[in-house]
């Protein structure tokens, strides 16, 4: 009896003590919300929540990883190049915060490359030179840091395809990268960290059917 009561008491009183449980619960709610938010206002709300979590949990990189993704989505929701850049600055800032907590991480390096790639898209003619080099370098480094990271392969493929199209023709090796990503997505498990990134499988399959299964042109 006393034991039961004690359990009840701790359950009621230790909401803040059991910080980990709270962290995972809060992240578990905000990660899908970040992917599904449809307006800049809703997305900003999710980013704000992730920011609060990130500031409270000073040793967790995950909030900043998803903030970076959130700002990439936010950048995508805006038309104006100057505004796009402003959100990409914030995305990069978030990647860097996460990297301070977890240096040399394949997922974060891939996210950094993703920001560079989006930067390039804002003005390919002028920025091609600089940002294609930076994006390629990041994706290649991400593959090197963890060859089993499917997102690194998928993003590398997008960059290869975009460059080949900009230059005229071909896939620039993109389909090989997408195929690598597909195999890795199939094996992906996140047993040790349920908050680690899992996104990308669906879009990877979509680009494969759009680009690679039509003969590669």
């Amino acid at each position, binding site marked *: *009896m006393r034991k039961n*009561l004690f359990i*009840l*008491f701790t359950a*009621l*009183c230790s*909401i*803040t003590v059991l910080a980990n449980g*709270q962290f995972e619960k*809060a992240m578990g709610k905000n990660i899908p919300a970040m992917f599904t938010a449809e307006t*800049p*206002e809703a997305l*900003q*709300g999710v980013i*704000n*929540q992730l*920011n*609060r*979590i990130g*500031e*409270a949990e000073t040793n967790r990189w995950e909030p900043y990883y998803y903030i970076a993704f959130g700002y990439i989505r936010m950048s995508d929701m805006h*038309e*104006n*190049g*100057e505004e796009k*850049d*402003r959100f990409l600055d*914030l995305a990069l800032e978030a990647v860097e915060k996460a990297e301070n907590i977890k240096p040399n991480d394949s997922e974060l390096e891939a996210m950094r490359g993703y920001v560079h790639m989006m930067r390039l898209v804002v003005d390919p*003619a*002028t*920025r*091609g*030179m*600089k940002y*294609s*080099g*930076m994006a*390629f*370098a990041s994706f290649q480094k991400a593959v090197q840091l963890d060859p089993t990271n499917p997102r690194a392969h998928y993003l590398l493929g997008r960059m290869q395809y975009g*460059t080949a199209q*900009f*230059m*005229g023709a071909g896939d*620039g090796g993109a389909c090989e990268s997408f195929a690598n990503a597909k195999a890795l997505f199939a094996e992906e498990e996140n047993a040790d960290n349920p908050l680690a990134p899992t996104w990308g499988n669906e879009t990877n399959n979509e680009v494969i059917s759009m680009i690679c299964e039509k003969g590669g042109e």
Partner: protein
Amino acid sequence: MRAIILLPFLFICSSLFAQTTISGRVAEKSGEPLLGVNVYIKGTYDGATTDINGNFSFTTYEEDSLILVASFIGFHEINLPLSKDNEPLLIRMREKVSELNAVVITAGAFHASEEGKREVLKPLDIVTTAGATADVPGALNTLPGTQTVGETGRLFVRGGDGRETKTFIDGMLVHNEYSPSAPNTPGRSRFSPFMFKGMSFSTGGYSAEYGQALSSALILQSKDLAENDRTDISLMSVGADVSTTQATENSSFAGKVQYTNLTPYFKLVDQNLKWDKAPEEYNSNLAYRVKTSETGMLKFYSNASRSDMELYESDIANPELELPVKVQNDYAHFNVSYRELLGENWGLKTGASFTKSDDFAALDTESRDQNLTGFHGKVVADYQYSDRLGILGGVELIRRNVDQILSDESGSFEQDFNEQLGASFLEAEWFASSSLGFKAGLRAENNSLTSKNTLTPRLSAAYKTGDKSQVSLAYGQFYQAPQTQIILSQPSASSEKATHFIANYQWLSEGQSFRVEAYDKRYDNLTRYSQVFDPSTYAFDGYGYARGLDLFWRDTKTFKNTDYWVSYSYLDTERAFKDFPGSFTPTFASTHNFSVVVKKFIDEIKSQVGLTYAFASERTYHDPNTDRFLSGRTPAYHDLSFNISYLYSNQVIVHAMVNNVLGINNIYGYEFADTADTNGVYAGRAITPAARRFIFLGVFITLSKNKGINQLPNL
């Protein structure tokens, strides 16, 4: 029993975790509500995002000495200790003035950079402009405020002479920035546009950091660390070059060697001039950059070249008589600069440059050998007091030694001078808000030759009139030493002075920009003489004015894959200088200048094509056969140029260009014999281009591990 035991616990619990509601409203200083602000209890997950009315509300179990944080992009963060009264809060946030939202003082200046969104031009635009032949001044000559002076190719800005525009690389002055060219052929800048990541072309009212230019400052920023290793080979109808870039994490090296020889070209394409030795040039560019720390950068740059040409020029009075002309130039420029942030709010820039130029020119038995040695050292510190106030100050020393030997059959005559200019400058930039900014600067100069001190103010202001539009104003005084020959003859010759008033309106939207600028420029202390080699005829009381209106429209949006811009300049100018018997419109000025630049990428043929049309109205010339000074008028100038870059493969690009496609016979002016013939008539002839058209062909090959890289962005 159970309840009795449980109750006190529950009581303890609920008092420990009493739920509090925190609510309120967040607004700007002006009262405008802010949407999307993150309001939360510091160190917790508890918080909310403000709605469209700036309202927020959330609950927390936290208690005691809580700090409420309001955080929003572009605003100063608020940290507020919470009291326990649960009253709704009203939080006022103040906007941060940052590069992103602050009004930019644009009066007088065209900025270009790879990154900036609010700039009218990109460095890339320089190299893709038809007719510009990948030359920086060539492309800038399609902007309003410049006057086409086809026989020199230099930047003549708002009624100013070509020498009234000075070029600065990484803050350092460049002497003799143009390569020598054949008579009546546009000279090219020695500096390749590929070296620069940004530039600011000021057509007046520029910063107190720069001096010794009456009309215009062309401020170039060289590229930082290179990202990729690459090697480029260019095979051109006028020569060949090889360049390589090697990058490591913290340093990069770039080198380019170029050899140009127009002999084969002149054999193929008829020239109006009779050549003995077509222009030949060896040119090398070396750049080395080291990242000395997270924020520090050390840059070395050198340019060395040797060029020469020989031709025959017929005598004006006696066209049968052909006189040999010889032009030679040896040039070396070395530039080192260093910048670093000293703490959070302090920045330091320092640099030194050294130039040596040896110019030799001969016409028949007369020759001029001019040697210039230049040094420039500079230290600039800047302090950011707050997001709204920044101060920049510095000192510089500019030394120039010029030695000239004039020779003819009767002997030789040597002149030289040693000029030392010491300058200090201070400039403050203050933003009353993100929509209203002011800049005030003061420049003090001491010239060792005239022993005079000058103090010149520079003022400017800008006000955002809307999301996309702004107005700005600028005022400034500028001094410049007179032309070299005057100082050689009389080293104590007074400096010339210009005063600028500029008003500008700019409208910038995604893919479209419009600007209009009106100006009034006054000249004082211009050098007058009746004989340029005779200092006893010098007077330093010349004067003049230039006023006008510049219009610019650019649109990259309306037509798919098409970018075009239109420039128009109206100029009204007169000056009393040199040997003018009064106030007249000088020969280099034209009232109307108009140009249209069009660039289009055509997917079907994987090619970028460009067209440039330039028009300049009539220019004055003096015909000694009439009594009225400068009463002659040339025909108007027209030029239509075309270029095409074809992407043969990822690494190979073919480029072709034709200037003056229509073959219009442009006349820049008329020149007359020094003495009248037996009938009392001064023989004359038109000054025309050396060839009607210029045709250029080139193949550009890139070798790089990164297959995505080629020279397309360079063409």
